[in-house]
């Protein structure tokens, strides 16, 4: 099994770098997009195994990206994990209904973050299931 590639979509450079460092440490490869316009193009080029998506982005929000990805013939199967500071009560149901695999509210515990990603990638053993803080479709 090759190294899994994760597309990080966030407009903040420090958040992108923080996620990159954590994911690299855990054995993942990463690529980046910084706004809604470039996200689908980067996904087509990089063919990631999973997408980590912020909701508040320049040039259109994360919901718009989920819609665009879910109607795409090949990108629609990529699991999307939404990671946002926005109130989960108001956004997680909408994100999951739109097609996101999981919703995590910032701040995200590192172990929980990795467990949700591994679960979305189908890599997690039953004993390592994420805790209650994560909402997974």
């Amino acid at each position, binding site marked *: 099994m090759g190294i899994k590639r994760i597309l990080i979509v*966030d*407009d*903040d450079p*420090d*958040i992108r*770098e*923080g996620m990159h*460092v*954590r994911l690299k*440490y855990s054995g993942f490869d990463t690529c980046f997009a910084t706004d809604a316009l470039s996200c689908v193009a980067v996904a087509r080029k990089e063919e990631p195994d999973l997408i980590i998506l*912020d909701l*508040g982005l*320049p040039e259109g929000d994360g919901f718009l990206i989920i819609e665009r990805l879910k109607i795409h013939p090949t990108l629609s199967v990529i699991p999307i994990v939404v990671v*946002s*500071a926005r*109130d989960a009560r108001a956004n997680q149901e909408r994100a999951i209904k739109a097609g996101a695999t999981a919703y995590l509210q*910032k*701040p*995200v515990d590192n172990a929980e973050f990795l467990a949700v990603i591994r679960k979305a990638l189908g890599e997690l053993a039953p004993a390592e299931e994420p805790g209650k803080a994560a909402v997974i479709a």
Partner: protein
Amino acid sequence: MSMDDVDKEARLLGQLAGIRESFLRRTQGDLPLLRELLARIQAGDSTGLVQLQTYAHRIHGGGATFDFAAISESAGQVENLLDVLIGTSAAPVVEPHDLRRLVECGRRLVLEIGAATTQGSP
């Protein structure tokens, strides 16, 4: 855990501490912009609202990610208020009482950013 793992984890924590410091430095460097935006908005210039919304969103998420809870909470209040005020309107009209609340929340954010340090946190 082997010595290699310990070294690797120490390097990770060091890198994350550096990124956290970079976030705070950048955010504090943006304080003049935040003050200017608040002054413009208070003077009736609504063109700064969207810029302030973008700024507040970034600080809300970054503050939460890097464990600056007070900054994140204040920025979240500004962002939530602006989400309601701006809505889908291209030229939002802000009522005086909403404007007062927004400026008050913005000033609290300025104080929280100015007071934050990286000491004593992960």
